[in-house]
C-alpha cells in the first residue's frame, strides 16, 4: 500500500510539474509578454523599448530558468544598474541601493510562498486565490450537498428494478440533465424563475450578493444549474452499478432466504453498489471546474472561476499561473483520492 501511495504521488508530482510548465510556456508567449510590458510600462512604447523593458525585468532569460525562478528552485534574477543599485525578482523592478537589496531572499517562488502580484487586482496573488477559493468552496459545498444525495437516490431507485417504468423515467431524466450544460440550464432557470416572461421572480438572476450573504433567493439558481449537469452522470453510474449488484448471487440468496426487497436493497446491495459512484463523484469535482467558470460568469459570482476569466481576459500572468496551479492540483488530488478510496472501499482489490 505504501509503495503504491509513493508511486502514485511521484507520478502526480511529475504530472504537476509537466502541466505547470506547459501553462507557464503558454502564458509567457511573446504576445502576452508584450502586452504586459505595455500595460506595466507605457502603452506607447516602441518595439525596441518593449524589448529592453522585458530584458531589464528578467523576461528574456531562458524559459526553463524562468520556470525555475517562478517555482522557487532557482535563485531569482538580479540586475545591477550603473549607479550600483540593484533590481531583481525578489527585490522589485525598481532598483534599490545594494545594502537594501542584500536583505532580500535569493529564492522567491511558489515554494517560498511567493505567488506574485496581480496586475488586475493590484494585490498579492496568494491572498486573492485564497479569498476566491473560499467563495467557490462555498458554492461547491452547496452544489455537492444538492448533487450527490439526489444523484445517489435517483441512481439507486432506478437501478433497483432495472427495466421498470420508474427506471425508464429516471434514466431519461438523468440523460436530460447530462444533455443540459450549465450555460443552457442557467439561461432556462433564469428565464423561468427570474425574468419578466413568466413573472415568477422567485429567485435572483444574479448571485453577486451571495458572496457576502448567501440566501435562498440569491444562491438557489447557480447551485441548481451547476448541480443538474453533474447529477445525471453520477446517477447513471450509480444505476449501472446498482443494476449489476442486483443480479449478483448473494442478492438472490438473500431474497430466497425470505428477506424483504427493501431490506435486501438497504442491507446487502447498497454498500456494494456505492463503490463505483464514489470514484465518479471524485472525478466529477475537476469536471465541475468548467461549470464553476461558466456559472460564476453567468451569475456574476466573483469566485475562482470568475477570477480565471478576469485573469485571462486582462493578461494577468501571475494570477493565471496561480489559478492554473490550483486547478491542476485539484484535478490531481481528486484523482489520487479516488484511486485510494476505491482500493479502501473495495476489498477485492489488493495493491501489491
Amino acid at each position: 500500500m505504501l509503495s503504491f501511495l509513493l508511486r502514485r504521488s511521484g507520478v502526480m508530482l511529475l504530472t504537476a510539474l509537466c502541466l505547470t510548465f506547459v501553462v507557464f510556456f503558454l502564458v509567457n508567449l511573446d504576445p502576452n509578454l508584450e502586452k504586459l510590458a505595455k500595460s506595466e510600462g507605457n502603452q506607447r512604447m516602441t518595439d525596441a523599448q518593449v524589448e529592453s523593458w522585458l530584458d531589464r525585468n528578467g523576461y528574456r532569460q531562458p524559459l526553463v530558468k524562468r520556470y525555475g525562478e517562478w517555482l522557487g528552485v532557482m535563485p531569482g534574477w538580479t540586475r545591477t544598474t550603473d549607479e550600483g543599485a540593484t533590481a531583481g525578482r525578489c527585490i522589485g523592478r525598481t532598483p534599490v541601493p545594494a545594502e537594501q537589496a542584500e536583505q532580500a531572499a535569493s529564492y522567491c517562488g511558489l515554494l517560498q510562498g511567493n505567488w506574485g502580484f496581480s496586475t488586475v487586482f493590484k494585490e498579492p496573488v496568494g491572498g486573492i486565490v485564497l479569498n476566491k477559493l473560499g467563495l467557490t468552496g462555498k458554492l461547491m459545498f452547496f452544489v455537492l450537498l444538492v448533487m450527490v444525495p439526489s444523484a445517489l437516490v435517483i441512481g439507486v431507485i432506478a437501478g433497483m428494478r432495472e427495466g421498470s417504468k420508474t427506471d425508464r423515467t429516471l434514466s431519461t431524466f438523468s440523460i436530460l440533465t447530462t444533455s443540459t450544460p450549465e450555460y443552457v440550464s442557467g439561461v432556462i432557470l433564469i428565464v423561468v424563475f427570474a425574468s419578466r416572461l413568466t413573472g415568477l421572480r422567485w429567485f435572483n438572476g444574479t448571485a453577486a450578493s451571495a458572496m457576502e450573504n448567501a440566501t435562498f433567493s440569491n444562491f438557489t439558481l447557480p447551485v441548481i444549474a451547476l448541480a443538474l449537469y453533474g447529477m445525471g452522470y453520477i446517477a447513471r453510474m450509480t444505476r449501472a452499478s446498482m443494476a449489476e449488484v442486483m443480479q449478483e448471487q448473494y442478492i438472490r440468496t438473500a431474497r430466497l432466504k425470505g428477506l424483504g426487497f427493501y431490506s435486501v436493497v438497504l442491507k446487502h446491495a447498497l454498500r456494494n453498489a456505492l463503490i463505483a459512484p464514489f470514484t465518479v463523484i471524485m472525478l466529477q469535482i475537476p469536471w465541475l471546474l468548467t461549470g464553476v467558470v461558466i456559472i460564476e460568469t453567468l451569475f456574476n459570482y466573483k469566485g475562482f472561476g470568475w477570477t480565471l476569466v478576469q485573469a485571462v481576459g486582462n493578461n494577468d500572468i501571475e494570477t493565471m499561473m496561480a489559478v492554473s496551479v490550483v486547478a491542476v492540483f485539484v484535478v490531481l488530488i481528486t484523482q489520487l483520492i479516488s484511486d485510494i478510496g476505491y482500493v479502501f472501499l473495495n476489498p477485492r482489490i489488493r495493491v501489491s
Partner: protein
Amino acid sequence: MERLTTLEITTAILGAFTPVWIGLAVILVLSWIFRGKLGLYGKLFGSPIGMFGLILVLFWILTAIFADQIAPYDALDQVSGMKNKKPGWPVRGLEGEFYWLGGDNLARDVFSRLVLGSRQVMIIAPAATLFAFMVGITLGLPAGFRGGRTDTVLTFLANLVLAFPVILLFFLLVTPEIRNDGTVYQLWGGRTWIASVPNILALVLFLFPIVFFLVLWTSKYSHRKDKLFLSVGLTLLIGGWAYIGLVFNADPLGVFYMDPNLLNIFVSVVFVNAPTVFRIVRGVTIDIKTRDYVAAAQTRGERPWYIMLWEILPNARGPLIVDFCLRIGYTTILLGTLGFFGLGVSPESPDWGMTINEGRKLLSLYPHLALPPALALMSLVLGLNLLADGLREESLKD
C-alpha cells in the same frame, strides 16, 4: 399590423421546416423497410428511447442541410426597427412578413440565426470527433496490444492532457494572439506558415488520419500488390492534398481551406478529446486481445498491425460507436462553452454558444434572445445521448 399569436407562430415555424419533415419521413420509412439489413442501426427501431434520439439528431442534420431553404433571412440581415422585438413581430415595411422568434440586439432574425447556426455545430462537432477518434485509435491500439513501454509513455501523455483543466486549456489555446506567435516559414508561391502552437498541433494531429489509413491498407493488402498501390496511392493523394490545404493553407486548387480561427478551435477540440478516446480504445483492446480469434490470427502468423486493425478494431466497434455519439454531444457542449466565453468561430457567426452569450446580458428583459439557441443545443445533445443509450442497449442484446 398585429403581432402573431403563439399558435400562429408555431404553425409558421412548423411550416418552415417542411423540407425537414419530408426528409425525416423518407429516411425513417426507408430505414423501417430495410431495418433487417441495417445491423445495429436497424435494431434501433426496437428501442423507443433510441428512436426518439435518432429523430432529434436527424432533425438537426436535415435542418443543417436545408438551412438556406428554411431560414427566411440571412444570418446578418438587419431590419431597422426590429431590435429586440418580441416573437411574432411584423417586419416593418413588409406586408405579411414576421420575425417568428423576434429580433435580436442588432435587429436580426432570431429564428434564421438559430437555423443557420445549426450548420456550424453539425459540421464542426462530428468532424472534430472523427479526428479525435483517428488519433485515439491509432495510438490506443498499439498501447493496449503491445503494452510495455509504448503503453506507459502513451498513457502518461494521455493522463497529462486529461489532468489539464479543459477550460484553462481553451482559454490559453484559443486566443487570436497565439496564432501569430512563432517562427515564420516561407512556403512556395509566396505563402507563409507560422510555427505557432495551434499550427504545430494541427501539423501533428492532422497527420493521424493519413497514418491510420496508410497502416490500414498496408496491413490488409501486404500480399496484393495491385490493391496495395491503388489504396496507398489514393490515400496519399487525397490525404496529402487535404493536409496541405488544411495545415498550410496552401491548397493549389483552393478546395481544402480552414479559417485560421476555426482551425485553432478545431485542433483544440481534437486535442482535448483524443486522450479520452485513447483510453477507451486501449481498454477495449486489452480486453479483446485475450480472445481466441486473436490467438488464432497470431498462430496464422499475421502481423501485429493486421491483428489490431482487422481483428480487434471491428470487434471493438460497439463501444466505439456508442462513445462516438456521446462524444459528438460532448463536443457540441464544448463548442457552446467556447462560444459562451466569446472564443467562438467569429463574432458575427450565428453559432449557438455565442448567441447564448450575447443574449444572456439581456436575459431578464428579453429572454427570447438566448432561449431558442439554448433549447436547440439541449435538444441536439439530448438526441445524441438518447441515441447512444439506445445503441448501447441494442448492442448489449447481442
